[in-house]
């Protein structure tokens, strides 16, 4: 029975590889907007290829690549050892394409007078050691800390770069998307949250961290402390000239750079 399934899977993957009339993309909600912009751009030029983009979290991007359910796995964090190992065992060779850079701004309500926090202070807020805004120079309000759910690459980046793997305190609220973080922060005067750079708008206030304001320049130069690369993973480097190859190299073009900037991220190229 297992053999039959294996053959079926091989046949299916061969079918996808040879026909290449569709590219299936799944994964991070942060990389999703870039993938969608690329997909629209690509389909406008290649009407015979159908590109579908789903957003279900970085973990699902890796899982999709592993199970062969997607051609491109969007991830806002690097693949973990365990995921690499599982891929290797299945004969899948994950290749990372860094399509853009992203900063994680710390967001507060626009009415909050606090302008600047250190990474240490942010960590202490999320550890539950600082519980009131007056301890960091703000008004006398109990801090409402908001985090992305543990299912997201954004969370793992924050956990790695800010928390140093220490545990976020138990009173912290969790929400399911970057948009929901912004929604909660813009409607809650005492809130603190974090989301991708592309999600900052006038309804929330981004703080300086260690004295550096999050922007394209400070992320690219490495000055802003909470920044990360965004990945698209493919199974092996795509064969040159195939639609998948053309798709995955869009980010290297000038148009690709513009799309990345338009979505609020920082391109890796500089034209």
């Amino acid at each position, binding site marked *: 029975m297992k053999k039959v399934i294996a053959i079926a899977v091989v046949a299916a993957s061969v079918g996808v590889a040879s026909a290449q009339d569709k590219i299936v993309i799944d994964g991070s909600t942060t990389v999703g907007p870039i993938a969608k912009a690329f997909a629209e751009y690509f389909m406008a030029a290649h009407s015979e290829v159908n590109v579908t983009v789903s957003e279900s979290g970085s973990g699902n991007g890796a899982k999709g690549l592993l199970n062969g359910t997607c051609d491109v796995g969007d991830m806002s964090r690097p693949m973990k050892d365990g995921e690499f190992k599982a891929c290797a065992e299945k004969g899948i060779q994950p290749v990372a394409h860094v399509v853009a850079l992203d900063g994680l701004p710390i967001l507060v309500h626009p009415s909050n007078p606090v302008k600047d926090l250190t990474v240490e202070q942010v960590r202490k807020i999320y550890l539950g050691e600082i519980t009131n805004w007056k301890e960091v120079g703000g008004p006398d309000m109990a801090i409402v800390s908001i985090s992305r759910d543990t299912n997201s690459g954004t969370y793992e980046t924050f956990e790695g770069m800010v928390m140093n793997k220490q545990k976020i305190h138990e009173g912290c*609220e969790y929400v399911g998307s970057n948009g929901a973080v912004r929604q909660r922060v813009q*409607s809650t005067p005492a809130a603190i949250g974090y989301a991708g750079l592309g999600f900052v708008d006038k309804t929330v206030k981004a703080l300086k961290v260690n004295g550096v304001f999050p922007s394209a320049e400070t992320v690219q130069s490495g000055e802003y402390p909470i920044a990360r690369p965004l990945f698209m993973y493919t199974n092996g480097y795509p064969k040159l000239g195939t639609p998948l190859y053309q798709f995955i190299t869009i980010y290297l073009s000038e148009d690709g750079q513009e799309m990345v900037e338009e979505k609020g991220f920082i391109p890796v190229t500089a034209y």
Partner: protein
Amino acid sequence: MSMNGNTNKSLVMSDAASVRLRLGNWIGQGVLFLITSLSTFAVFFIFYFIIKDAIPFFKTEGFKELFTGTHWYPSAHPAEFGALPLFAGTALVTVGAILVAVPLGISAAVCLSDLLPFKIRQVVKPMIEILAAIPSVAYGFFALVVFAPMLQEKGGTLLSTGAWLILGPIFALLVVVAGDLLLDRLRTRIKNTKLAAITVFSVLGSAAFFLIYRVAGQLAGIEISSGTNAFNVSIILGIMALPTVVSVSEDALQAAGRELREGSYALGATRAETILKTIIPASVSGILAAVILGVMRAVGETMVVWMASGNAARIPEPWYNVLQPVRTLTATIAGDMGEADHVTGSSRFHVLFALALCLLAFSFLMNLASETIVKRSRKKLGK
């Protein structure tokens, strides 16, 4: 060709036709039976697969931490699987929802079945049932985008207004009933009944007013720092459970029958006495079944709690503080599933099935209980 050939056809069915008929019958019944058993099989399959994936967790981690631990960090190294805050969150939210849905639902059911004229009832009942047709994500969106900011901005005002709206009518009713009873007792001893009535009602009335005023004043001073909390979700879940409670308990009240009501009136009982002392006791098991169905609706709801409960895995302090964020079992399963699989550590994957098993066992027991109760009530009413 003449028509004569056909007229000779016997009225007795030929052997072949008889076989065909029986075969068709048999196949038809078989197909229908298969389709019906499919849904039964689905239940067994769900039980089987959830148990299959829950067992590895209990094997590696045991039972103690899951049910007694208070730290829920499934993604940490080393992971902690204390699900007590999740059970507490589910319980708190469910109790809250029941406190909203049951008094409202039963009052509405009584009103529908015994007070409103038939024509109005035919309009109102379907409207209440529409509540059940609204998708839960719409409720969740409302809770997150409208209700949560409202609680943050004018939480105190909202709570004190709520106290007036709820306590006002209840106390008014209590004052009238208590005053009436008191006057009845006093009637034999006092001559000036008019003066006595004025005194009794004004004393009771002002006492009640003062009490509500104090409670509302206390509530008005409360500031809610985060609107996504157990209170928010309880209210929304209560509204979601309302149509179930109303519909089922109204059916139960109707089932008590006309004879019972007429018998009660014939004995000289008033309408209030008939409802409180005859109809409700007669249909208590049906009402209980309605409550259980409401509980199940609240326990199993996922989208609303995931969007609007705050999802903080901590037991509120004190435990009944509904103004703090909570995390429920269903929201945890939905929220943690994406990143949890065999790749990233199997306990983290299997613990979600262990939680699902607890939920399943709970709703299975509740379902059994409601079945038994309904069956017993039918027997009691002789139907």
